[in-house]
């Protein structure tokens, strides 16, 4: 943003401070250029708290750790870490860093006041800015998708802390931080980048270094030390006050002031740049930075350093010239320019016209290109656009060189829209390079606006952020220059904080906000325009016709007032001091009487305002004085007014020779001689008439001369204006020359490139000759005789083996083929070659050489790599060997044929794909009767029997052979004589070498006899077969009979079972009947008997014998009744029918217990109130009866348990704790018939019996009878 021009104005060494007058009062009232100077009024007052901003991205953690490892605990510095953090995750950066340093590390929350010896870390997804010594978080914004976190922080750091800040760029990708470093540097901060060799991601440090504004490139761990010594140096540093020194100071000349002057003089001497018009504060601040960098304490020390180190002056200069700019800086101003000014510029301009603009202080060219882009865009919308010429000037040679290159880092994408980037730039290796058409519309020149001749007839001048560095008088001068340079109605664009004085007569303000001004059209005396024919160029410039600058210094620093005052002491008469153009510079008190102002434009030109009667003499005197360089004296007689005595005036013109600086000035003296009146009267009397006539004549001549002089003067004036314009044009030419100079350099580089290319070509040639050699060797080694012919069939090249065929020697190259003799029998050779040339299809034929070789001649078109036909290639390959082997093959085939033909028992013949016979062997003739001539070319259908032909047997056979490779042929065929024969053979498919069918072959023999034998065999077999069938049938019958018998047996068995069941049931029925009989008949009768006997007893007298008898009878009957009951019960308990199984078993088990004195227990589960079928109840009752009988008989048990359950089936357990037995043995023995009986009985009811027993371990009988669970009782659920 600061375009800096140095001002080569007069500087008197003794009081240069006056030219540095400037206001340090902070304010920014618009329209007061000198009030805008101090951009950062506060920061100089900020105490010495130095803030170190660390910017990092990828790979930054390690760099930060290394950095902090080098920071001592009490550095007194503030560290702010700004890194790109993922917005999605919490950051542990503070925690990580706290392991690397003893300082307290904290993540910034909202707003925090910084304190020394602390580390502040940015949180994720926020931006950090510095404000009044505090850190504050703001919401992030993306610039064209790029991260600008670090740039933003550095910018605010620069604004807030200026020189008391340090910017460090560490590892990371992208270019964030580079722009921020520039701004920091501009504000006097220290800038450091990590050594790209060390950084994990070097892109960010590289971008920073690429700005050219990095003070140090260091490894991360060494940075802290550098920062501390820089800070210490700044504390020790003593600089003069930034306020203008007081006169006493100036006079006393304290060391610092003197040193400052000398430093600037040194800069001026060595570089040609004069910073006298630079604002003092800026100059001091920037020199101060150099002091810090070199760890120096004060200006005298720096002066010393500067004198001893030749390179330092350039470093200082580049610090003083820090130029920061960007594309479309202040976009609103550019928009205003685009919409308000540029259309005006194009107004009234056509194809033949020029649109001229001057970008004054263009720095690295961004602004100039921005303007060029706008103008070109506008031109593109115009039908007949004018030629666009932009002059872009700066006094920094490096910046200009950079601008000419027109290559910018990718970060410009922040400021240039994607459309413009696409249209006006191309992208190459991470840089945007300005396109040629833009580049060519801009002329860059090294130029100092205050020193060099300006450009002229400009439509637009932009001069942004240059004036703020100049003091007021320099600013006014610049405005004068711009007024000269801009054509009437042309525009002037200034920087945001600059403005033309509101009251300025030179420019009218059209847009106050964006500082757009238009030149006022008014004629005014030609202002001071620098027209130095040759200007002192800085020593780094190549051209070296620098003037001794000391002269210039002296010349420019002479005060006209002082000089005049000095001279006046010597010459008392009225006097006027004029310059070489006769402009009045100073008047003595009485000189006014000799001047006369008339109407018209006021002017200071002495010859115009001097009294007419003096004009001519004065004019000649001045001219003579200028020409001869000596005093001129003219005596002029004149009459002050008609009638008054004439006076005489000695007009003395004295060129001023001393001091040299003001050479060219003239002092004009007016010595008045008062002639004695009497003498005059006498003369008047004597020459009265003649004198009057003469006087008239003189007056007339005067008048003539005067008009001549006036004409002369006006033409001189015109010439001078032309001269000035020529000088401006000259300046343009100079710029163009420089451009040419640059072009020349470019050409040199192109030349360089060409020689590189040349070298490369040489290498290629070497390669090509290698390839050639390879090719040659290849051709020789193949022994293929080859001839290369051009389109005219002239020999271009051949291989050695061709010499065997052609009579050809090396000198035959380029001779036509037709001239060659050869030993080939190949008359068509030339014709073939021509044919190939015309049709481009290769020709191939076999030829014989005269010495009997067979050769394969091939004629091919010669195609270049670009596929052009440039001739013909003939090759001859010796194929004699092949021929021989072909012959051999033919012979062997012949032998084969003979062999096949001789096999008389086998018929062999072949068919082509159309099933026509192509070969018919003698064997075939023998077998089938037809001879070869009768069969060849015919279908082989003839050998098939009529019925087979009808049935399509032949076609099927062919098809099978086609599909499977072969098909058996075992069937009756027919002979020529009509007899039939049984054939055993096969049809085979024949393939060519590509595997495609080319025909069939059949081999067959007469197998009729065999067939007959087989037929007999087959009949015998059939007979046997028949007999076996018969025998089998009779066996089947026998089997059926057996099966029927078996079925009978089964039926009988079933009948037996049925019988058994019926038997068991009959037995039970019988028992039941008997039991009932006993109960209901015998029992009841006994009961009746009992009652009768009782009655009988009662009827007898008590104690009588009859009574006693009756009693005994009654008792006997009662016993009998009980026995009858028991008998009935034993037969079959009536309760089994009346009361059911459960009740009956309960009674039975209890009775059994009583009877056998063995503890017996019965439990029925799920049988309460339910009845099983009578058969099952009976079966189970009998099983229990049998089991308990066995227990009583064999077990010697003390306890028996009977359990009956009815769930999914009926289960009965009878378990005792008795002696037990071997179940296998028990079941086998006949003794235990009871067990078997139980089994059988259960089997009849469909039940099973399991016995678990072991000797000594008791016995368990488990009876299971499948029976659906009682429906009303869902025990299984």
């Amino acid at each position, binding site marked *: 943003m600061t375009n800096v021009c140095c001002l080569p104005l007069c500087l008197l060494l003794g009081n240069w401070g006056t030219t540095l007058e400037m206001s340090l009062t902070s304010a920014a009232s618009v329209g007061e250029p000198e009030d805008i100077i101090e951009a950062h009024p506060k920061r100089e007052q900020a105490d010495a708290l130095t803030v170190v901003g660390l910017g990092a991205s990828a790979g930054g953690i390690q760099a930060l750790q290394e950095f902090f490892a080098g920071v001592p605990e009490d550095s007194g510095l503030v560290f702010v870490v700004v890194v790109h953090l993922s917005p999605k995750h919490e950051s542990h950066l503070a925690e990580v860093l706290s392991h690397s340093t003893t300082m307290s590390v904290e993540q910034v929350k909202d707003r925090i006041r910084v304190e020394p010896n602390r580390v502040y870390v940015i949180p994720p997804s926020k931006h950090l800015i510095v404000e009044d010594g505090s850190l504050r978080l703001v919401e992030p914004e993306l610039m064209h998708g790029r991260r600008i976190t670090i740039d933003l922080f550095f910018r605010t750091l620069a604004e807030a802390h200026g020189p008391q800040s340090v910017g460090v760029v560490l590892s990371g990708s992208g270019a964030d931080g580079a722009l921020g470093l520039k701004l920091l540097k501009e504000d006097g901060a220290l800038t450091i980048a990590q050594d790209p060799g060390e950084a994990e991601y070097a892109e960010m440090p590289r971008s920073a270094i690429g700005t050219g504004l990095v003070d140090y490139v260091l490894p991360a761990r060494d940075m802290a030390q550098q920062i501390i010594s820089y800070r210490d140096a700044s504390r020790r540093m003593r600089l003069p006050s930034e306020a203008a020194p007081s006169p006493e100071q100036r006079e006393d000349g304290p060391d610092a002031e003197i040193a400052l002057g000398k430093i600037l003089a040194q800069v001026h001497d060595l570089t040609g740049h004069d910073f006298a018009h630079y604002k003092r504060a800026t100059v001091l601040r920037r020199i101060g930075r150099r002091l810090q960098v070199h760890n120096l304490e004060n200006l005298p020390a720096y002066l010393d350093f500067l004198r001893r180190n030749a390179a330092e002056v350039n470093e200082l200069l580049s610090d003083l010239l820090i130029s920061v700019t960007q594309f479309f800086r202040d976009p609103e101003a550019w928009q205003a320019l685009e919409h308000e000014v540029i259309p005006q510029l194009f107004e009234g301009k056509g194809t033949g016209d020029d649109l001229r603009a001057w970008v004054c202080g263009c720095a690295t060219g961004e602004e100039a290109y921005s303007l060029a882009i706008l103008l070109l865009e506008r031109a593109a919308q115009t039908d007949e656009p004018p030629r666009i010429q932009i002059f872009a000037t700066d006094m920094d040679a490096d910046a200009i060189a950079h601008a000419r290159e027109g290559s910018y880092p990718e970060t410009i994408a922040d400021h240039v829209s994607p459309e413009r980037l696409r249209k006006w730039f191309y992208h190459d290796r991470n840089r945007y390079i300005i396109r040629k058409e833009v580049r060519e519309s801009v002329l860059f020149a090294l130029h100092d606006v205050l020193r060099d001749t300006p450009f002229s007839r400009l439509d637009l001048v932009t001069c942004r952020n240059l004036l703020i560095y100049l003091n007021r008088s320099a600013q006014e001068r610049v405005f004068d220059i711009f007024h000269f340079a801009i054509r009437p109605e042309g525009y002037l664009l200034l920087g945001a904080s600059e403005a033309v004085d509101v009251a300025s007569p030179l420019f009218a303000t059209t847009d106050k906000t964006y500082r757009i001004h238009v030149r006022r059209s008014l004629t005014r005396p030609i202002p001071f325009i620098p027209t130095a024919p040759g200007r002192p160029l800085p020593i780094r410039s190549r051209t070296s016709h620098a003037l001794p600058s000391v002269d210039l210094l002296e010349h420019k620093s002479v005060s006209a007032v002082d000089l005049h005052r000095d001279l006046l002491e010597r010459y008392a008469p009225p006097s006027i001091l004029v310059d070489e153009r006769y402009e009045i510079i100073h008047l003595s008190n009485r000189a006014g009487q000799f001047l006369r102002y008339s109407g018209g434009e006021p002017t200071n030109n002495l010859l115009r305002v001097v009294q007419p009667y003096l004009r001519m003499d004065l004019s000649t005197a001045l001219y003579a004085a200028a020409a001869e360089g000596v005093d001129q004296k003219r005596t002029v007689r004149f009459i002050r007014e008609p009638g008054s005595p004439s006076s005489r005036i000695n007009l003395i013109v004295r060129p001023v020779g001393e001091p040299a600086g003001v050479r060219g000035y003239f002092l004009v003296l007016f010595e008045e001689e008062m002639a004695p009146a009497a003498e005059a009267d006498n003369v008047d009397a004597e020459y009265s008439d003649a004198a009057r006539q003469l006087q008239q004549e003189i007056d007339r001549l005067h008048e003539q001369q005067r008009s001549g002089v006036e004409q002369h003067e006006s033409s001189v004036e015109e010439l001078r204006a032309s001269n000035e314009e020529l000088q401006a044009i000259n300046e343009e030419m100079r710029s163009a020359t420089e451009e040419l100079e640059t072009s020349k350099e470019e050409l040199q580089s192109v030349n360089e490139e060409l020689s590189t290319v040349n070298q490369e070509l040489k290498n290629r040639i070497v390669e090509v000759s290698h390839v050639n050699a390879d090719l040659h060797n290849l051709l020789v080694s193949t022994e293929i005789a080859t001839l290369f012919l051009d389109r005219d069939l002239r020999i271009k090249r051949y291989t050695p083996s061709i010499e065997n065929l052609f009579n050809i020697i090396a000198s035959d190259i380029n001779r036509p083929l037709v001239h060659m003799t050869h030993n080939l029998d190949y008359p068509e050779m030339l014709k073939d070659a021509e044919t190939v040339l015309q049709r481009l299809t290769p020709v191939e034929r076999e030829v014989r050489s005269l010495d009997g070789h067979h050769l394969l001649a091939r004629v091919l078109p010669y195609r270049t790599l670009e596929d052009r036909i440039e001739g013909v290639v003939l090759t001859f390959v010796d194929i004699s060997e092949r021929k021989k082997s072909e012959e051999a093959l033919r012979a062997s085939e012949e032998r084969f044929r003979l062999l096949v033909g001789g096999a008389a028992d086998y018929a062999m013949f072949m068919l082509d794909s159309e099933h026509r016979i192509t070969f018919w062997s003698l064997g075939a003739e023998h077998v089938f009767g037809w001879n070869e001539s009768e069969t060849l070319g015919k279908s082989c259908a003839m050998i098939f029997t009529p019925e087979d032909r009808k049935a399509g047997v032949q076609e099927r056979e062919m098809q099978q052979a086609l599909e499977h490779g072969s098909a058996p042929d075992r069937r009756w065929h027919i002979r020529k004589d009509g007899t039939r024969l049984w054939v055993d053979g096969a049809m085979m498919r024949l393939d060519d070498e590509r595997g495609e069918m080319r025909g069939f072959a059949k081999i067959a023999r007469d197998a009729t006899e065999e067939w007959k034998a087989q037929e007999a065999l087959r009949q015998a077999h059939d007979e046997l077969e028949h007999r076996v069938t018969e025998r089998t049938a009779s066996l089947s019958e026998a089997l059926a009979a057996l099966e029927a018998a078996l079925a009978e047996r089964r039926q009988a068995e079933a009948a037996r079972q049925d019988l058994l069941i019926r038997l068991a049931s009959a037995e039970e029925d019988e028992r039941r009947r008997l039991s009932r009989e006993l*109960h*209901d008949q015998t*029992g*009841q*009768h*006994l*009961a*009746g008997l*009992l*009652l*009768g006997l*009782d*009655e009988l007893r*009662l009827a007898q007298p008590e104690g009588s014998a009859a009574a006693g008898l009756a009693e005994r009878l009654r008792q006997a*009957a*009662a016993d009998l*009744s*009980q026995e009858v*009951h028991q008998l009935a*019960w034993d037969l079959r*308990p*009536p*309760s089994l029918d*009346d*009361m059911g199984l459960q*009740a*009956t078993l*309960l*009674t039975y088990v*209890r*009775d059994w217990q009583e009877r056998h004195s063995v*503890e017996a*227990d*019965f*439990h029925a*589960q*799920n049988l309460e109130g339910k009845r099983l079928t009578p058969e099952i109840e009976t079966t189970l009752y009998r099983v229990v009866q049998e089991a308990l009988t066995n227990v009583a008989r064999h077990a010697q048990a003390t*306890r*028996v*348990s*009977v*359990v009956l*359950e009815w*769930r999914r089936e009926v*289960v009965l*357990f009878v*378990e005792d704790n008795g002696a037990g037995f071997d179940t296998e043995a028990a079941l086998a023995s006949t003794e235990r018939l009871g067990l078997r009986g139980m089994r059988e009985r259960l089997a009849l009811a469909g039940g099973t019996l*399991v016995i*678990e027993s072991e000797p000594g*371990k008791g016995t*368990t009988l*488990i009876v299971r009878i499948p029976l659906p669970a009682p429906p009303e009782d869902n*025990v*299984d*659920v």
Partner: protein
Amino acid sequence: MSDNIPTNPTVLRILLADDHSFIREGLKGLIGKQSDMEVVGEANDGQEAVSKAAEYLPDIVVMDVTMPRMSGMQATKQIKKAHPRIKVLGLSMHEDSSYLRGLLEAGASGYVLKRSAPQELIQALRSVAEGNTYLDPAVAARAATVFISKTPLRGEVAGAALSERENAVIRLVALGYTNREIAERIDLSVKTAETYRARAMEKLGFSTRADLVRHAAVLGWFGEN
């Protein structure tokens, strides 16, 4: 019908139900000798007993258990249903307690064997008339064990401290598996299964399978499956 209405409230009015006429004759002679009893009617089978009871409304019906057309138990049930005040005294040849139990469940108030002394019957009639239950001493002992064995259960408190294996084995025993089947089912040797079973039976205080099954029924093992 009004003739049949008892005239002397102190005299027991008795209906005899037996399919044997000589039995009825004997009983009639026996009862006729008693001053405080009279036979008001006779029935030849169960059905007749029911209708005669309804007709005469006797104090006591002497009921034979086994009769044609309708058993004594059926008849008792119907009479008691229709006339709860009529008492029934069973008179039977059957000495096994199942009949005794059946008859008592049907609503009879006493049971006398036909072979017992006639005084036994008279005494039973008087006792029943007074509202008592009378059982022939010859069957009383058995009847007692019948009723006792319906309620016993020694080990129902158990569940007592069986190991998991014992518990599993004992449950399977209760569910009717043989030792071999149990051994297969829970992958033990037959001997081990037996050992578990014996130990569990001992812990539970059971001596027989029947004890165990009763216990299992009470604890609801059969419902669990």
